[in-house]
């Protein structure tokens, strides 16, 4: 009777174990620290993001490439900017490397991603926002000066 009870218990544990090991509600143990660690929620509810993130990405990618829409919320560059982990030295760890944000789930679900054969897996290069604050009026001024010089030259010839 005692042995039967133990067997029954083992069977029950075996059946419910997939729920225990699923990702829902359990924090990932990703090496390093990212900006997303401190955020209360992603751009959409977490459950929706886990299931549908690629739908948002596909939709945004066509809007961006063809129509020039550059909103932040579903932008791929912004995903990486927020979710990439930084090591102790402050260097970003590629988001598609082993044990990092993208790779942990995609290994488990056996879905291969080839985003990073073209897209940068860490924030790299100039940030577009950094340039907006800069003033480009000096370029206009240079051209205006040029025109004034030319006009005065033409008048001098006359």
């Amino acid at each position, binding site marked *: 009777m005692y042995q039967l009870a133990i067997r029954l218990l083992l069977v029950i544990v075996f059946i419910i174990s997939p729920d225990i090991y699923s990702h829902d509600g359990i924090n990932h143990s990703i090496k390093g620290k990212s900006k997303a660690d401190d955020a209360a929620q992603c751009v959409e509810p977490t459950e929706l993001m886990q299931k549908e993130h690629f739908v948002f990405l596909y939709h945004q*990618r*066509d*809007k961006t*490439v*063809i*129509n*020039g*829409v*550059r*909103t*932040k919320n579903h932008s791929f*560059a912004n995903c*990486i*900017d927020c979710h990439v982990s930084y090591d102790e030295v402050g260097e970003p760890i590629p988001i598609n490397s082993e044990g990092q944000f993208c790779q942990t789930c995609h290994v488990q679900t056996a879905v291969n991603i080839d985003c990073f*054969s*073209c*897209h*940068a897996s860490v*924030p*790299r*290069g*100039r*940030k*577009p*926002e950094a*340039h*907006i604050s*800069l003033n*480009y*009026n000096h*370029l*206009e001024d*240079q*051209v*205006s000066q*040029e*025109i004034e010089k*030319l006009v005065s030259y033409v008048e001098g010839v006359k």
Partner: protein
Amino acid sequence: MSTDIKLTRRGFIVKSISVLSTVYFIPDLFAPAQAAKPLHEEVKSDTKWAMSIDVDKCASGCTACVDACVEENGLYGFDRPETDSQWIRKLTIKDIKTDKVKVVPMLCQHCENPPCCDVCPTGASFRRVDGIVMVNQHTCIGCRYCMMACPFKARSFVHENLTEQVTTAPRGKGCVESCNFCVNRIDHGIPTTACEEACMKEGHKAISFGDLSDPNSRVNKALKIKQNRRLRADLSLKQRVTYSNI
């Protein structure tokens, strides 16, 4: 003595109103030079990006525009000049009759009738409504028909795996790529390309970029000063990149 520096009720009100008006109203009097497109808005066809290049001002031996393009778009190569990507390159041309030598920056000419888009089997090669001809690398299959169709050899093919792409310019093996007028800058409201900025900084001012529908844009001013012409005008491709003194 103390009565002189004491602030009266009247004085306080007058001074505070004048300070507040300075803070609130004066910045509104000076509008920004060029209004940026809001990030959420789609590009419109009433914007017409174009470039004018004054060949006489382009200095031989100077590669500022090429270097700026490489840095902006992360176009590092493998020291194989035959196959490495180049979105802008310097050509040396010689007039057969006069033996006069000139250097010309050559980049995607952003045609209004682009032959690359005509031949593309997947529609990856396309012309954005604001006139920028670019490659949608998500649908490019790397067949290179567009490279054969382009009369200016403006396009490059990526032959090898890349690892050091910059965030603003995704690019990878098996896709064709070319100059896109620094589309990421433009969409973020920066009205200049990397090559133009570099040429201005260098002091040559050979490249002028801007919006054709804006009468005060740099490209329109440049077009007014000197007569510009399109390369291979016999093909009637209506390029948006034009050259003067060539």
